[in-house]
């Protein structure tokens, strides 16, 4: 537990003379080495003891640590799956299904939570008294409630309060909501999916090239050319052309009641919808607070200076405030994203088959907690590391050139 404190205050070397070399064997170093050796030995001993206990305890229930069971038939069903799965498939397969469910929930929640959080965060700094205070109430209320409470309240309300499929509510846009879940209209593209991907790729490349040209032109002459308008117009024109010539066919699959069931569209189960919405509004409150902190951190003088230079309010926000706020926002936002991904594991409370939920069922069936916990830990470690790497990359990218931090 030694802190990094020099035992002897460093003395500035006298001019001309080389600083004295630290002695190889001071008393402190020897003591530290002894402590470390003792700790290492204790750890090894504890590890050995733990291993011994685990093997003896497992042997008492007739199992040994062995990952071979992963290829055996799982025999249990899951609430929903993104890839084909039947109970006859292996444990490895069902864990993969759980992982995909976790990733789907995390990705969709990330999107919704970020959009709502950004909107509420900006609203909480609004000049409008009503909007500002409503946003504050939202933030304070949601931040001080347990996420499990929000989830369960919403889930029970949905299961009890929503109508049967026969009498499903029709939402604006043609979505249907019933006690079996949410049915969304879904675009289908029977012809030209590949072409669409190419068009979108070209559009992204063209927009980034144009953004660079705009910036160079602005740096050289001080005149800012429009960026968003030509980009959006270009994409609209390309899509319109593709649809008009019939190279791409797009139509919406609308959910509709046929017999006793709803067919068409995309079906989100009640469990998924409750998780998605409750985790999103919970994390949106945290993200809103981060966004608010970032916006507040930008010096008021910056806005005033921008306004004095004749920039309109929208541009002040977009060109002056947000670029500076984003540097304050990104590090805590990254933490929040990591929390969000981990928090998807409360899915178990409503029976959505995420990775941890599948693991729980598998442990109860096979009594192989050590192997399964290891798998889950490694998977989460991998998810965390890749998310953190992506966030670091984004933080480096959002930094202005020439600033290291």
């Amino acid at each position, binding site marked *: 537990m*030694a*802190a990094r404190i020099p035992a002897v205050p460093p003395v500035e070397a006298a001019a001309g003379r080389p600083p004295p070399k630290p002695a190889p064997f001071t008393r402190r170093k020897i003591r530290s080495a002894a402590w470390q050796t003792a700790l290492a030995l204790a750890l090894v001993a504890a590890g050995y003891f*733990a291993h011994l206990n685990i093997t003896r*305890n497992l042997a008492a229930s007739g199992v040994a640590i062995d990952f071979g069971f992963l290829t055996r038939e799982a025999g249990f069903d899951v609430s929903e799956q993104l890839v084909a799965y039947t109970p006859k498939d292996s444990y490895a397969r069902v864990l993969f299904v759980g992982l995909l469910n976790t990733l789907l929930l995390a990705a969709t929640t990330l999107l919704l939570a970020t959009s709502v959080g950004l909107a509420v965060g900006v609203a909480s700094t609004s000049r*409008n008294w009503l909007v500002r205070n409503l946003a504050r109430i939202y933030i304070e209320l949601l931040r001080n409630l347990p996420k499990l*409470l929000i989830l369960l*309240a919403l889930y029970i309300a949905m299961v009890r309060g929503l109508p049967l499929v026969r009498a499903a509510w029709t939402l604006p846009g043609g979505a249907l909501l019933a006690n079996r879940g949410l049915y969304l209209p879904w675009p289908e593209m029977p012809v030209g999916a590949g072409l669409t991907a190419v068009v979108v790729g070209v559009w992204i490349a063209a927009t980034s090239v144009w953004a660079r040209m705009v910036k160079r032109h602005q740096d050289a002459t001080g005149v800012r050319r429009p960026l968003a308008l030509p980009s959006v117009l270009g994409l609209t024109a390309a899509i319109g052309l593709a649809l008009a010539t019939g190279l791409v066919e797009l139509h919406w699959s609308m959910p509709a009641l046929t017999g006793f069931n709803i067919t068409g569209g995309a079906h989100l189960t009640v469990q998924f919808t409750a998780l998605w919405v409750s985790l999103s509004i919970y994390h949106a409150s945290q993200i809103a607070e981060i966004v608010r902190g970032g916006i507040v951190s930008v010096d008021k003088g910056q806005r005033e200076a921008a306004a004095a230079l004749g920039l309109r309010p929208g541009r002040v926000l977009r060109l002056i405030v947000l670029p500076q706020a984003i540097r304050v926002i990104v590090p805590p936002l990254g933490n929040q994203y990591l929390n969000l991904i981990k928090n998807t594991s409360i899915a178990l409370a409503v029976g959505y088959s995420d990775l941890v939920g599948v693991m729980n069922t598998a442990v109860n069936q096979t009594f192989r907690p050590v192997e399964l916990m290891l798998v889950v830990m490694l998977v989460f*470690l991998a998810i965390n590391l890749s998310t953190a790497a992506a966030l670091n990359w984004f933080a480096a990218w959002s930094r202005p050139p020439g600033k290291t931090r």
Partner: protein
Amino acid sequence: MTDAAASPPSSTTASAPRPWRPRHVVAREWARANLFDGPVNTALTLVTVAFLTWFVPIALRWLIVDAVGFHGDVATCRTAGGACWAFLRVKGDVILTGTYPFDERWRAQVAALVTLVTVGVALFWRGGFLGLAALFLGACLIDLVFLSGGVFGLEPIDATRWNGLPLVLFLSVFTMAAALPVGVALALARKSDALVIRLVAIGWIEAIRGIPMVAVLFAGVFILPLLMPPGLHLSSMISIFVVLTIFHAAYFAEDVRSGLDDFDKGQIEAAHSLGLGRWRTMRLVVLPQALRTALPALTNSIIGGYKDTSLVAIVGLFDLMATSRLATADVEWQAYSLEANIVVGVFYLVTCVAVSERFRRLARIAGADGDGRS
């Protein structure tokens, strides 16, 4: 009137006295500056007002006007269009203490009260660290005596029946109290020169922070008992207590480390030149300042940890949400889970706001700035 929008409305009490104006004029100017400042703001105001005029009457009607009061009965609840607060009179005990034996409920209630009072005293504590530690240890022992019994003629009660509020408070308060010193030690270990010590600290902190709390709780239920020598039975209450302490310690360690990172090394040199040894420098100079800097981050972790203690419901312990479900499992009262959720939510809201406000004030007194949560 023309300068109304330009001057901030709240500064009317400032040094330069404004001429007296009728109240409706002031109100109109305030509204113009805060609600109808430009077309975008006016539109926002109108949309918000429309939403509020739709939502507030519905909420009020459900909560108060059409609701059945505390002394109503289930028959009136059936026909009423609003909330059924009579549910709380009948099922309040179940929500508070769950399956704790009915005649011994007072013991669970006393335990919950002791924990609450302990937190209250700790938040206004002016004594030293050892006294605080003694306070928490004493309160923990008193709680255990009341909850488990078996001494002083109290009937012994199994840990699986410690439910609801006493359980949530016991687990959250005492695991975090135990985790704080461990977290400080971990933070120091992470900054240690000694490689082995540093690696152990990094391994602990990063492994725990990398996996979800639900998985940590499962590790407590599944793995921890396997680590014990054969024949030694570990109840899930003890397992959960241990893993929660390990869990919170990792998060506290990162908060304390943020305080240590900001610490000025010159102060350590100054302390050494005054003749203070390593441990006294640590205790008297480094830690007080580092903890002060870390206070906002610690507040965050403490509030988060308190809220997340509810996740023990997932591994089969009965927190307030599980007892709420127990209360609505009764067919007669099945329809009133929202009422239970609202009461539990209000409890969390009040306690979280109280604790975080107190911590924010402490941080202000201590001179550390920051809004408290990042």
